[in-house]
């Protein structure tokens, strides 16, 4: 079973503020899922290489060519930052990193 402290630590790492009810609920649910996952311990993987992907493609690059659709103008600017909740001119506005 995860401890309260572990759940709070995970939530902080995940950048999600949990209510105390959520903490309690996730503690139970995550613990039972982690218990289920424990079954993997039974599998001998001593000589097995991990499989991160199935296509076998490695280092896929595309030509470094300029594309007209990526030339910055008002329209592209609007597409890129037009939905930013808080802006000042062409800049994205954020709250201070350090607390006052």
């Amino acid at each position, binding site marked *: 079973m995860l401890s309260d402290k572990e759940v709070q630590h995970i939530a902080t790492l995940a950048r999600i503020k949990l209510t105390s009810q959520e903490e309690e609920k996730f503690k139970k649910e995550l613990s039972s899922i982690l218990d289920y996952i424990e079954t993997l311990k039974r599998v001998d993987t001593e000589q097995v290489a991990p499989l991160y992907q199935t296509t076998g493609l490695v280092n896929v690059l595309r030509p470094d060519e300029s594309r007209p659709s990526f030339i910055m103008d008002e329209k592209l600017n609007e597409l890129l930052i037009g939905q930013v*909740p808080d802006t000042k001119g062409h800049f994205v506005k954020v709250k201070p990193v350090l607390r006052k």
Partner: protein
Amino acid sequence: MADIGHTIESARKGIAVGDFSAREIFDEYQKKIEEKKDLNAYLSTFKFAEHGAYPAREGDLAGVPCAIKDNMLIEGEIATAGSKILENYVSAYDATAIKKLKKAGVSFLGKTNMDEFAMGSSTENSAFGTVKNPLDVSRVPGGSSGGSAAAVAADLCVFALGSDTGGSIRQPAAFCGVVGLKPTYGRVSRHGLIAMASSLDQIGPITKTVADAALVMNAIAGHDIFDSTTVSRDMPDFAINLEKDIKGLRVGVPKEFFGGGLDKEVSAKVLTSIELLREAGATIHEISLPHTEYALAVYYIIMPSEVSANLARFDGIRYGHSSQKGEALLDTYLASRAEGFGAEPKRRIMLGTYALSSGYYDAYYLKAQKVRALIKKDFDEAFRSVDVIVGPTAPTVAFKAGEKSEDPLAMYLSDIYTVPVNLAGLPAISIPCGMGSESNLPVGFQIIGKLFDEGTVLQAAANLERALV
């Protein structure tokens, strides 16, 4: 089969001979969508041809009205991914699959409901209300592409696109009695698909017939420079083998797919279908996929790990819901994500964050990727002696709404036969194989193929479809 409305072929023919225009069939479908609003299959609907010029009204899917799962971007349209955090998000560009459908000349009817960020097996995790199964409104349509599957089953579109990370096309197709194909990983571009688990996600068609699935694949598949995991190889004509018989086709039946947890009425229908394949000339071979029992545990490490990374982009800064609470940047993150995400994304982000956190990486993530290799190896070995592998798509027929929503693990078990296929990157189809004897609800039959061998999967499926009539 009951009146399924239009297939791609019948819609195209109707337009070609002048029975109706592209506009008329579009309007007819919009009217039906309005009448069946209670199903909650659609999150948004469009006006005719508002997506611009339709450069190829003569394309292969010219004038065919279709529906798109709401995690794919159509330029200028809202894409919510079923989440409050993207409630007002306007797509800045077309997903590659959408661009290709536009080129083929389709009409987009609207965007379909789904589990939040495609996380779920019942569409009960949508932030915009649950979807009802059109065959029995007290039951779920499956998920996460539940809106797309319900729309196809209720004839609220000719076909739909879904996405499949652990079964999200095939399981709802099974629950709603329609056809759903998950292509090989790397076959269809994921560019413009809102990412859930990047090493598993794949876009695919949900259709009324196997032939329609092949036609949609012809339109959407192919290499894309915007998705470096797409494979550049010759694009086959996916429809070319449909009429061919399956004499001598070697069909593998994994014994692990018929163990505990499989409902009797599902098992009975699946076994009958295997007999039909035998009668059609296929040879049946019992095979073993010994690591099947570990697939779900592997999936519930790898998928949440990738989820926790992919959903880190929702920070309340660049787009989407932003909380005004607090005075520092960290407060914006914490509160925006707390307010914007529902319970299931939170659960999976937390699980993934834990699995990837310092000190746990080897025990969880690395271990899971090693067992994943063994699961893939099981398939590789099996495919040395068989051409396709068959079994049930899901262990049960559509379950009642609310039945599993309080028990995440029980819900996850619904994907037990579909998840291994994603882990191995293989193509697989679910086709309806009749009604369960007790529930009178559709049972899904799954056919799994070798990497990039959708052709044989579709061929086997078309043969079974003919045999079932």
